[in-house]
């Protein structure tokens, strides 16, 4: 079946602009995660959605970052007023129930470059 998909695959933007990154999880997966992979920080958790529960936003680095998940499926990560330090690969993952120990399936990522 189809895996996790993300779009765009690459995004180049100018400092100060807003960007939106999209994630389509695996059908039937109730949990969705966003992670960021950067040279300086490695791979770090950003935000977690599980069904209709309030998201866990504990990993968002600043209030310029926000995310939503509509209809329990597609998710959009928005970065407002982008900064050069936001340049990274943004990875989305989904899992069946969102519990510890479950396998998370990752998308190919969106490579963001802020000039």
């Amino acid at each position, binding site marked *: 079946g189809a895996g996790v998909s993300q779009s765009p695959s690459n995004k180049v933007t100018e400092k100060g602009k807003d960007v939106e990154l999209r994630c389509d999880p695996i059908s039937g997966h109730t*949990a969705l*995660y966003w*992670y960021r992979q950067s040279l300086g920080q*490695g*791979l*770090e*958790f950003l935000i*977690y959605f*599980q069904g209709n529960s309030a998201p*866990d936003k504990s*990993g968002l680095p600043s209030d310029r970052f926000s995310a939503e998940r509509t209809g329990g499926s597609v998710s959009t990560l928005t970065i407002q007023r982008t900064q050069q330090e936001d340049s990274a690969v943004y*990875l989305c*993952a989904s*899992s069946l129930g*969102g*519990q*510890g*120990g*479950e*396998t*998370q*399936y*990752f*998308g*190919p*990522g969106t490579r963001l470059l802020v000039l």
Partner: protein
Amino acid sequence: AQSVTQLDSHVSVSEGTPVLLRCNYSSSYSPSLFWYVQHPNKGLQLLLKYTSAATLVKGINGFEAEFKKSETSFHLTKPSAHMSDAAEYFCVVSDSFSGNTGKLIFGQGTTLQVKP
């Protein structure tokens, strides 16, 4: 608090020789441990995972890892390296208690180079 330490940032082996990638973890609860692999310009792929069943876990492509609670280690091994194994490997921990969000904590990664 959870954390993962990958003891080597770079490992180089010759094709056909054994691979050992070392990982130590810290967790307040019973951990779930994973190894993921990332080939250049590709997504993360699960190699194997430990979730409190057998301590020796077998994964894809001939890889295996052993959970050693007394040493808080979860080293990844393969008897014979193949050129296609060259990639970045991540050791990952997630707490397994009820109500946990399942968010993953990643190590810094180990780059495996395989020489012909």
